[in-house]
C-alpha cells in the first residue's frame, strides 16, 4: 500500500514509524529540510522536500497511485487544502488533521467527504476523550469491553499491597484456582517500553499491568491487588484551551464537579458562558495559593492541559504532593515521557502520539473486528473472528508458533468470555482478542487469514 504523509512533525514522524514497521511504501513530504533528514536517517521511507499544497510536489510524489494521503502539518488550512488537492489528483483516501473540533461535530452536515476529505483527526478532541475515559474508570488506568463485557481489558499500577508482586506469571497463576484474568501487557516503572509477558516474566512493584478478564475477574483483581474502588467526583482542570474546554464539556454533563482554571480573563468569561455546569476560575495555575484556596486537597483528579509541558508537569507534582489521587498532564515533548512517569504523574497525554495512533487505527480498520490501543502503552488490542480457512483454526494455542511480541488475551465463544491457556483448542467462529506490539500486527494477522 502506498501512503503519502504530508508534514514531518511529531505526528507525521511517529506515524511514518508505525507504518514503516509494516513495510508500507511511505512518502513523507515537508518543507523543512531538518525534519526530513531526521526521518530519512531513522526510517525506511522516501522523503520529498516541498510544500504539500503544491501540485507539482504532489505529482512528484505520485499522488495519483496512492492509496492514502495523510495531511498532518501544524496548519489546519494547509491540511485541508492538501487533502482536497490530493483527492482530486487521484488519491483514494485522505485524512486531515484539524484543530477546530467543530469540523468533526459537523462532519456530516458540511459534507467533508464530498469535497475530498474522508477522515478528520483532531488531536485536541482525542486528548479530551482520552482524559474523559481515564476519569470514568476509577482504580483502573484503562478499560475496554469486548462484546458487551464478555471480556474486559483493565489496566492498573501494581502497588506493594498486590499479592503477586515479585512473583513470576506462572507463580501468580497458582494464587487463584480458577483463572479469570491474564496479564497481557506490562510497562515497567520508569520506562516506556511495553513488554508482552511470558510465563517467566516477573511482576514488580510499580509496574503498569494490563489484564484481560472474563466476567467477575475485575472483582478478583481488585482483591488481589489490594485496590479499593473509589469514584472520581471532584476534578480540577488547569488550562482552558481546546483540550481543557472539550474535556470540561464532556465531563460536566456527567456527575463530575469541575473547577476549570484559566489565565486569561476574557477567555475565562467565554468559558464560563459556554460551560454553565463548571466553576470557571480566573488565575494562574502555578499559584499554589490559588490552588489551596480552591481546595486542591479535596480533588480526586487533577488535569493539567495548558500549552506549556513544564507547567503541566510541575503543577501535577504540586497536586500529587497535596494528596490528589489521580493526576494527568499534557506533555508535548515525547522525551519527557520517561521522566514524568518516574516522578509519579499517573498519566501522560501527548496529543501528537494520540493523533498518530488514531490514524494508524483508521488504516487498519476493516481488517479486524474491533481495535483499541493500550493507554499510553505502545501496544494494540485486536479482535478477530476465526474463519474455517484460518491458519489458527482447530489448533491448540501452545502448538501455534505465535510471535513473541503478541499474546492471545481471551476468546469469546457463544458470547462467553474465556481466558485461554496453552491447551485450549481454537475452533471456527471464535472471536479472539490479541494483544500485540505494533511491529507484529502483520504477523498476527496472517494467522487469521
Amino acid at each position, binding site marked *: 500500500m502506498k501512503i503519502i504523509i504530508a508534514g514531518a512533525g511529531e505526528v507525521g514522524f511517529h506515524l511514518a514509524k508505525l507504518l514503516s514497521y509494516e513495510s508500507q511504501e511511505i512518502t513523507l513530504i515537508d518543507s523543512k529540510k531538518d525534519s526530513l533528514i531526521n526521518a530519512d536517517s531513522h526510517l525506511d521511507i522516501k522523503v520529498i522536500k516541498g510544500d504539500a499544497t503544491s501540485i507539482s510536489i504532489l505529482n512528484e510524489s505520485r499522488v495519483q497511485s496512492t492509496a492514502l494521503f495523510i495531511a498532518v502539518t501544524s496548519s489546519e488550512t494547509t491540511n485541508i487544502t492538501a487533502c482536497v488537492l490530493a483527492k482530486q489528483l487521484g488519491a483514494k483516501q485522505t485524512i486531515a488533521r484539524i484543530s477546530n473540533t467543530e469540523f468533526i461535530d459537523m462532519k456530516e452536515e458540511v459534507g467533508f467527504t464530498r469535497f475530498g476529505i474522508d477522515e478528520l483527526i483532531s488531536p485536541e478532541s482525542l486528548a479530551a476523550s482520552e482524559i474523559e475515559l481515564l476519569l470514568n474508570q476509577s482504580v483502573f488506568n484503562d478499560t475496554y469491553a469486548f462484546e458487551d463485557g464478555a471480556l474486559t481489558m483493565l489496566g492498573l499500577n501494581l502497588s506493594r499491597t498486590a499479592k503477586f508482586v515479585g512473583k513470576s506469571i506462572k507463580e501468580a497463576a497458582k494464587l487463584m484456582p480458577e483463572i479469570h484474568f491474564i496479564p497481557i501487557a506490562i510497562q515497567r516503572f520508569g520506562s516506556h517500553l511495553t513488554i508482552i509477558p511470558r510465563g517467566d516474566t516477573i511482576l514488580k512493584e510499580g509496574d503498569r499491568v494490563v489484564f484481560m478478564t472474563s466476567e467477575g475477574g475485575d472483582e478478583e483483581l481488585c482483591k488481589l491487588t489490594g485496590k479499593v474502588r473509589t469514584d472520581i467526583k471532584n476534578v480540577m482542570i488547569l488550562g482552558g484551551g481546546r483540550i481543557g474546554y472539550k474535556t470540561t464539556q464532556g465531563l460536566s454533563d456527567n456527575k463530575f464537579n469541575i473547577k476549570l482554571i484559566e489565565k486569561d*480573563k476574557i477567555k*475565562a*468569561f467565554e*468559558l*464560563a*458562558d459556554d460551560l*454553565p455546569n463548571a*466553576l*470557571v*476560575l*480566573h*488565575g494562574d495555575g502555578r499559584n499554589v495559593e*490559588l490552588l489551596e*484556596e*480552591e481546595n486542591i486537597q479535596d480533588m480526586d483528579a487533577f488535569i493539567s492541559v495548558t500549552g506549556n509541558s513544564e507547567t503541566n508537569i510541575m503543577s501535577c507534582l504540586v497536586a500529587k504532593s497535596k494528596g490528589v489521587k489521580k493526576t494527568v498532564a499534557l506533555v508535548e515533548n515525547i522525551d519527557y515521557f520517561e521522566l514524568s512517569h518516574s516522578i509519579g504523574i499517573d498519566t501522560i497525554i501527548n496529543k501528537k502520539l494520540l493523533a498518530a495512533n488514531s490514524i494508524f487505527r483508521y488504516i487498519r480498520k476493516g481488517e479486524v473486528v474491533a481495535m483499541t490501543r493500550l493507554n499510553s502503552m505502545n501496544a494494540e488490542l485486536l479482535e478477530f473472528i476465526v474463519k474455517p480457512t484460518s491458519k489458527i483454526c482447530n489448533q491448540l494455542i501452545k502448538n501455534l508458533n505465535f510471535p513473541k511480541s503478541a499474546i492471545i488475551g481471551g476468546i469469546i465463544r457463544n458470547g462467553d468470555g474465556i481466558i485461554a491457556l496453552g491447551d485450549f483448542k481454537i475452533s471456527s467462529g471464535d472471536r479472539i482478542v490479541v494483544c500485540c506490539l505494533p511491529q507484529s500486527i502483520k504477523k498476527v494477522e496472517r494467522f487469521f487469514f
Partner: protein
Amino acid sequence: MKLNYKIIFHFLGLLLSFNGSFMLLASLMSFFYKDGVTFQIAVAGLIALTLGVLVMLITRSSSKEMGKREGYIVVTFGWLVMALSGTIPYLLTGSIPNFSNAFFETISGYTTTGSTILNDIEILPKGVLFWRSLTHWIGGMGIIVLAIAILPLLGIGGMQLFAAEAPGPSADKLHPRITDTAKRLWLIYFGYTAAETILLSLAGMSFFDAINHSMSTLSTGGFSTKNTSLAFWNEHPIIQYIVMMFMFLAGTNFVLSYFAFKGKVQKIFQDEEFNLYFRFILIFTFIAGVIIYLYTDTNISSVAHPMVWGLAESSFRHALFQVLAIVTTTGFVSADFTLWTPFLLVFFFGIMFLGGSSGSTSGGVKVVRHLLMIKNGFLEFKRTLHPNAILPVRYNKKAISEKIVFNVLAFFILYMLSFIIGALGFSMIGLDFESAIGVAASSLGNVGPALGDFGPTANFYSMPTIGKWWCSFLMLIGRLELFTVLILFTPFFWRNR
C-alpha cells in the same frame, strides 16, 4: 461636536403633525357622537398639524446625521411636545380650563400613567374622552419604539440586552431596521386593541366604552370613561376577565407576542423573563386572594362589591385584577386595595416597584431587571467563597457581561433615589407620609392610583399645582427610563465635544 438642531426640530415637527392628525381623528369621533365639541377639537388638530408641517418644511433641508445626543433630546422633548400640544383640545373645549391641570392630564396620558385630575369624568364630551384615551394609545406606540429600538441603541439600564434585533455595527446611528420592527409590533398592538374592543362589545360594553378601555388597556395606561373605573362593571365579571387578559398581554414583551403569531410558541416558554412575570402574577394573586377571602371586610369600601359568582370568585377576581393592574402599571380600579388589610396595602405598594416585562408598554423597574439583580445577588454569595471564580449572571442561558449588570444596578439605584427624592418633594408641599410615598412610587412607575389621599377611589384634583408639576416630572423620567431625561441635566452632555 455640534448638535444637529435642524434634525431635532424636524422630528419634533413630525411628532406634532402626527399628534394633530390624531386630534382630527378624535374630532371625527366627536362628530359621530354629536357631542358639540367637534369644531374645537378639529381646530386644535389643525393648529398642531399646521405648526408641525410648518416646522418640518423649515427644517426639511436638514442633514440626516443623527447621533446619540440628538436621540436623547428627540425622545425627551418629543414626549414634552406631545404633552404640550395634547393640552389644546382640553383647553379649547373648556373641559379642563386650567393649563397645569390639562398638562398633568396629557402627560399622564402620554406616559401611560393614568392618574387623573378629573372629578367627574362622565360629564366630559365623548370626543374629549376619546382624545384622553387616545393620548394613552399614542404614548404606548411611542413606548414600543422606545423599548425595542431607541433604548437598546442608547444603552440605557441594560436595555441593550433585550433588543428585538441587535443594533448593527454602527451603534451611533439610529438603525434603519427600526421601522421594520416597529411596524410589525404596531400591527400586533393595533390588532390586540381591535380584538379587545370587539370582545368587550360582545360582552356587553357600549362600543364607545369598549374602544376607550381597549386603548387604555393595551398602553397599560388606566384612563377610564367611568368615574369608578372598571369597578363600574363589577357586576359583569366577563368584562373584567377580558380586560385582565389584555392587561396581561400588554405587560408581556410585544416581541414575544410576535413570536407567538409566527408560531414559535416554544420561544415564549423558554423566555426567563416571561416565566418569572407569569409566576409573580400567580403567586401575588394567590396571596392577595387568600387574604381578601379570609380577612377583608368589603363593606367598608366605597366601591360596590356585588358578588355575582360568590365570595371566593370575587376575592380572587379582584386579587388578580388589582395585581395585574399594578404589576403591568395599568392602574385600572376594580376595588379599593388600600382598604384590604394593612398587609395588602404595603404589599401593593411593594409591587408598584415591580413593573411588567421589558418590551411591553408597562412602566416601573421591569421584571427582567429584578431577575438579573436577584441572580446577581445570589452569585455574590458564591463569589465571596470563590474570589477568583468567573461567575457571570445568566439570562436566557447566555452569560451577561458585567457592564450590563452594572447598568441594571445603576438603574435601580437611580430609580430608588428618584423615588426618595420624589417622595421628599411631595412631603415638602404638605402631603402626609402615605400619600407622599404612594404618589412618588405611582408616578415614577406610571401606575396611576396611589395611596392615601390619592388612592384608587380618589383623584389628583386636590394636589397642589406645584405637586402636579412634580408628578408630571416624575412620570416623564419614569416613563423614559430615567437616564434618557436625566442625562440632559448633566454638564458633559452639553459640553462641546
